[in-house]
């Protein structure tokens, strides 16, 4: 049981590359913290620094009130689950879980009890004598979890533990991990690039980009009030529609004064309607493509240039493309002109560089 506090943590490689540019995160006791971001954003590096596998070149890492910058991984009282599981191939499942305990000089009887208990929880009891290669991907994943659990560490560290599993198993294991963490109430830090995993697992969501923290907060709060356009487009699938908007448009459309900036609207916040909600935005679209996934349908529409109320779109969307999500499978045919609108409360406004959220 421990807090994990990162104070202005930095990592500069000998070549001068700055992988982590000053990160401050405070994970409370028993909380589940998820680091999420695109590949290369430094989330794995940060986790490995907490584990002690990478040196810290600036700032402090504090686990349970002790600065561990100079402490060996084995003495930090942490356990880590690796992406490729990193099971010892030549050891049985039992020995894989028992290895760390034996190295700490624990009594064989105590080891038996702990491994037995972990195996029971993870439903591995019948497989204790098998070698890792005789197990399926999901079972290996559980052994890797078991190896972490038996240690009863202060902190669990997960490095994209589910990315080697197929989609169905991933969802099942995601729920398992959450339940297990709740029951053991062990402080956890979890790295993923999957925003859905991040949303569903996290107590605290840390969105990272380019070695910096973009936003920290409760997942729903991050979703509802993204602090930057990066967070807005990274959290949520399909991504938020972003379009640049002129100062006079802000005034005339939204009734509030402000500088030119970026307007963001989530696909699910549009409705197909002929009316323009007061203070809201309406867009005329031509339907370009339809994606039906059963319970919902995505409409990819383009804004005709002359009808454009907002100027060209920055960010990931091609200029003029807007994604609209509607429930059900009823959708207008391709080529039809439709009009979509979003109410004022569902609009997100950002500064022109996308770095700050403007609360109107």
């Amino acid at each position, binding site marked *: 049981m421990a807090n994990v506090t990162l104070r202005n943590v930095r990592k500069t490689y000998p070549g001068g590359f700055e992988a982590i540019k000053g990160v401050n995160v405070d994970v409370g006791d028993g909380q589940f913290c998820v680091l999420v971001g695109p590949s290369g954003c430094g989330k794995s590096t940060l986790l490995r620094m907490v584990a002690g596998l990478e040196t810290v070149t600036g700032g402090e890492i504090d686990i349970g009130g002790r600065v561990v910058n100079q402490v060996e*991984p084995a003495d930090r009282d942490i356990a880590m689950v690796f992406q*490729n599981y*990193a099971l*010892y191939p*030549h050891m049985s499942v039992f020995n894989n879980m028992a*290895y760390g305990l034996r*190295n700490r000089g624990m009594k064989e009887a105590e080891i038996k009890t702990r491994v037995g208990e972990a195996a029971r929880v993870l439903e591995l009891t019948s497989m204790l004598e098998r*070698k890792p290669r005789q197990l399926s991907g999901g079972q290996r994943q559980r052994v890797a979890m078991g190896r972490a659990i038996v240690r009863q560490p202060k902190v669990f560290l997960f490095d994209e533990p589910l990315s080697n599993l197929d989609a169905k198993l991933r969802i099942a294991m995601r729920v398992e991990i959450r339940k297990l963490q709740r029951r053991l109430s062990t402080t956890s830090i979890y790295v993923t690039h999957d925003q859905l995993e991040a949303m569903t697992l996290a107590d605290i969501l840390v969105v990272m980009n380019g070695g910096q923290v973009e936003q920290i907060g409760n997942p729903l709060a991050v979703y509802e009030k993204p602090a930057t356009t990066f967070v807005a487009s990274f959290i949520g699938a399909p991504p938020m529609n972003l379009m640049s908007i002129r100062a006079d448009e802000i005034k005339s459309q939204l009734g509030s004064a402000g500088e030119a900036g970026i307007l963001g609207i989530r696909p699910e916040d549009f409705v197909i309607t002929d009316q323009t909600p007061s203070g809201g935005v309406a867009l005329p679209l031509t339907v370009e493509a339809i994606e039906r996934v059963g319970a919902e349908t995505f409409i990819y529409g383009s804004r005709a240039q002359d009808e454009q109320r907002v100027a060209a779109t920055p960010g990931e969307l091609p200029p003029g493309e807007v994604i609209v999500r509607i429930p059900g499978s009823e959708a207008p045919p391709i080529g039809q002109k439709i009009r979509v609108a979003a109410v004022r409360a569902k609009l997100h406004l950002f500064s022109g560089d996308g770095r700050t959220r403007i609360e109107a």
Partner: protein
Amino acid sequence: MVEQEGFRRYVAHIVLWIGIAIVAFPVYVAIVASTQDNALIANGQMSLLPGGHFFEVYYQTIFVGTSGSTREPVANMMLNSLVMALLIAVGKIAISIISAYGIVYFRFPFRMPIFWIIFITLMLPVEVRIYPTYKIVADLHMLDSYAGLALPLIASATATLLFRQFFMTVPDELLEASRIDGAGPFRFFWDTLLPLSRTNMAALFVILFILGWNQYLWPLLITTRDDMQTIQIGIRKMMTTNDALTEWPIVMATAVLAMLPPVFVVVAMQKLFVRGLVETEK
């Protein structure tokens, strides 16, 4: 492979049989000759069927030796050869796996120069550096000793490179998991790397044992006492007799005996080798 039809299949088999006959015939002659009476062979009347002297020839070969003045039972030669081959094989594997571990897993000053120095020794086999090596061994008073036979042949660049390549394919996460599990460098080496290297060690052992067993030039130089003779040297010495007839049955019996340990090692280790391949995965 696709099965050949009718005639072509027979041709293939016939070719194979001819090949086997060519390879196996000298071995067969050696075995047959080792069961004949020496007088028959000396007269050029050797039969191609096994003679009736199997037990007496082999008894004399193993426990007594030739009737020459410097006789040495082959059992002792085989022991010498065995000790030398085992020392070389085990020593080479031990030294090279440890140095490969150092080169791959530790950052120390002059790591790469040291690696290149090891690499360069690939170009300097025993034959090339035989004079300085002999001088060193002689100065260390290791002539006519097992240490002198084996030590100079133990350092191995090939095996070091082989283990280095293998270690570089072992995922880094295994090392990291070990570190988190509280295993230091020694434990990681002993508990994880050694078991994973089992198949490599088995394959190397086969090659290196045979290499050691077949050493000729070095033992010839380094041993002068008859009781330190290896079997390869022994065979040669038996064949050159000054005044008496060469005792061919005994020479042949010695040759047959000299073949047995390598054959045994290949057969025995091949099983382990294949089983290891199937069982282990990185």
